């Protein structure tokens, strides 16, 4: 005898959410926070080529965790959206809030209508002209938008990392202190992450029109060095 499958909507949503969360938890986490001259994004990423953190526009950065091809597709769509908007209006009219809303729309739609939800969590950050204007939008796999203040954690073990970050982060700290807090929170007490496994970038107010800048290799080691030796 044949029985039509009935799945309660609650169950269906829960299954999809579990599926997405599992996918996201498999990857490494990422921390973003504000510091005195802008916004710092720090990810654990052994690859130099497949980036998690990147530039969207003059004052807007993007970071994603989860499935690389899915968040990279979103990243490129964001760059296109921002460049087209800046081209048809003005560079000043491109803002993180509207981009975050666009992302939320897409993620929400995919979550409810497609075969499988996107296994991603993304961050859209905008550096303001002064520290009060800094914005961090954290967007979940189901399209939920969270407007974070100070710092945000994306990816697996977000709760534990968030707890450590909440304890270490100070508003208006210099870059070195903020970077040490972020790396410390990512690593936890029993582990140190080598510099080569870190992907760090900033949106720095003092960096001219295009505020996005990667901090790599020796520069990153120098920034992290003094506070690490203090901690030891």
């Amino acid at each position: 005898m044949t029985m039509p499958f009935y799945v309660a909507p609650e169950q269906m949503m829960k299954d999809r959410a579990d599926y997405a969360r599992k996918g996201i938890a498999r990857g490494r986490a990422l921390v973003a926070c504000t510091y005195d001259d802008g916004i710092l994004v720090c990810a654990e990423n052994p690859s130099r080529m497949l980036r998690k953190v990147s530039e969207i526009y003059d004052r807007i950065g993007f970071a994603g965790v989860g499935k690389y091809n899915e968040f990279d597709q979103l990243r490129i769509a964001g760059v296109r959206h921002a460049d087209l908007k800046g081209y048809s209006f003005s560079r000043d009219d491109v803002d993180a809030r509207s981009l975050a809303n666009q992302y939320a729309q897409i993620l929400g739609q995919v979550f409810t209508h497609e075969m499988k939800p996107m296994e991603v969590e993304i961050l859209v950050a905008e550096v303001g002209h002064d520290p009060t204007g800094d914005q961090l939008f954290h967007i979940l796999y189901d399209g939920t938008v969270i407007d974070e203040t100070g710092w945000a954690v994306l990816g697996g073990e977000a709760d534990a990392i968030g707890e450590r970050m909440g304890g270490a982060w100070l508003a208006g700290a210099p870059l070195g202190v903020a970077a040490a807090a972020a790396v410390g929170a990512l690593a936890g007490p029993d582990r140190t992450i080598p510099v080569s496994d870190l992907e760090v970038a900033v949106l720095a107010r003092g960096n001219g029109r295009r505020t996005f800048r990667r901090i790599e290799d020796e520069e990153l080691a120098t920034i992290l060095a003094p506070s690490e030796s203090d901690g030891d």
Partner: protein
Amino acid sequence: MTLPLYSPQDDPGPDFAALVRRAGLAPPLPDGAVSALAGPVGPGGLTVTHGTTCVAVRYADGVVMAGDRRATSGNFISHRSIEKVFPADRHSGVAIAGAAGPAIEMVRLFQLQLEHYEKVEGSPISLEGKANQLSQMVRNHLPAAMQGMAVVPIFAGYDLQRSEGRLFQYDVTGGRYEEHDHTATGSGSLHAATVVKLGFRDGLPEPAAIDLVLRALYEAADEDSATGGPDLLRGIFPVVATISAQGFRRVADDVLRDRFVALYESLELARSTATDATTAEGGEPE
């Protein structure tokens, strides 16, 4: 505006110009002929604002680019302080001559094309690639050029792979020609190019290269009515930019003012010594 998502089969890739066309934002081509020739235009015709002389010279650390500030519509001066030298990205610049409106639009699209590619792909285009991109844009503009709205740019940049400055000159068909030492474009280019040619030496230091392009624009303005000279009264000077390993840098107006004052003084001195020499030889002073 919605998020531009494309399926992998019809993704426009890192090409911003293609994206603009896909989004329906590219302007349609004009269907009537527009006369951009100098001189008064009869009823029904339009006079297009024209930008004029630009030069670029290779020097020890890279390239220096300069352009005068005048735009003309027929025999009228339509703008005294238009800018024709723009940064294309961190290590390259573009200078334009021709119909000002389409030229400035082309520069805007070109700048975005380079930045867009860099962001989408994660690495910048090579200098050669940038020059080819501009070539395609000039080529696509040919139908408008045939209707009297020609745009003839110069592209110059610092090649990070070869560690040297490079210059590219174009024609209306998109032809791209690499120049070794110097190039000029626009109505006053004949005079400007001659001055640059006579004053050019290999490995010029930066101040000498700046003086050379200023002299070239000064002489072009002296001979060509569509090229504007330095305007000490209003404080309008040519746009001069150096492009080296440190990137695109615009030379400040007060530096240019000092260089022009020095140029005037040297020209004055040259005239008076010439007169003195004639007197000393027993000739009649004028």
